[in-house]
């Protein structure tokens, strides 16, 4: 009888330990959504490396059919509104690269066939930089860019 009670207590302690481990984030729940996230592209510290990781090529044809809307001068680098619009057909994805950021690739939007060639978001910029929009349309890569001057950087602190 006594030994059974010991056993029960032992079981209780180990169950408690697992609970603590989960709570401390040692056993992370399996990620479902973020599985396809291209880590190497987002970790790349140059535009060329990010493009190679993301698209397997650094070649993009300049296109007049892509509009990058961003302020000429951003007073606050922590919040820089950027909008990319394109009239190209069969747009597969729109990526935004902030060349002078520590990790240039900021965001990439995969668009379904019924999505319009339009995305808008807000980015952080460490310092003045060229903001490049890369549009993948019909299997090819097109680009357009805009220079944004930043008065107060958004990556320090």
């Amino acid at each position, binding site marked *: 009888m006594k030994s059974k009670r010991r056993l029960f207590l032992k079981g209780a302690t180990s169950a408690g330990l697992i609970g603590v481990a989960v709570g401390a984030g040692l056993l992370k729940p399996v990620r479902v959504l973020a599985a396809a996230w291209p880590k190497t592209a987002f970790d790349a510290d140059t535009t060329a490396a990010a493009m190679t990781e993301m698209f397997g090529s650094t070649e993009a044809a300049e296109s007049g059919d892509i509009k990058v809307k961003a302020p000429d001068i951003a007073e606050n680098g922590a919040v820089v509104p950027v909008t990319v619009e394109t009239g190209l057909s069969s747009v597969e994805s729109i990526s935004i690269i902030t060349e002078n*950021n520590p990790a240039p690739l900021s965001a990439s*939007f995969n668009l379904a066939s019924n999505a319009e060639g339009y995305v808008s978001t*807000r980015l952080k910029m460490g310092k003045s930089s060229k903001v490049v929009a890369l549009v993948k349309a019909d299997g090819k890569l097109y680009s357009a860019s805009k220079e944004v001057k930043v008065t107060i950087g958004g990556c320090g602190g």
Partner: protein
Amino acid sequence: MSSIKVRAKADGDVVTVKALMKHPMETGQRKDKSGNPIPAHYIQEVVCEHNGNVVMTALWGPSVSKNPYLSFKFTGGAKGDALKISWADNEGKSDSEEATIG
């Protein structure tokens, strides 16, 4: 309460979706007052579904601004259709919100 605010408006055949998410979007490059680095904590993926079909997947790095804003457009939606937006961050947390197109 959900961390996502979504608004979707149909203008003819084109639906404009605007979403605001509440998230620190910590880059991992900042330091706190005592000089210790603040760990990176940011949304990596945002998925938007229209009537169960994925219309847009956003992959984000840490340089998207705090409390991110996102807007995009798609065709083939109509008033009253269901829209679902969900995000997942680098710590494995996620959230989602449903809306109807107005």
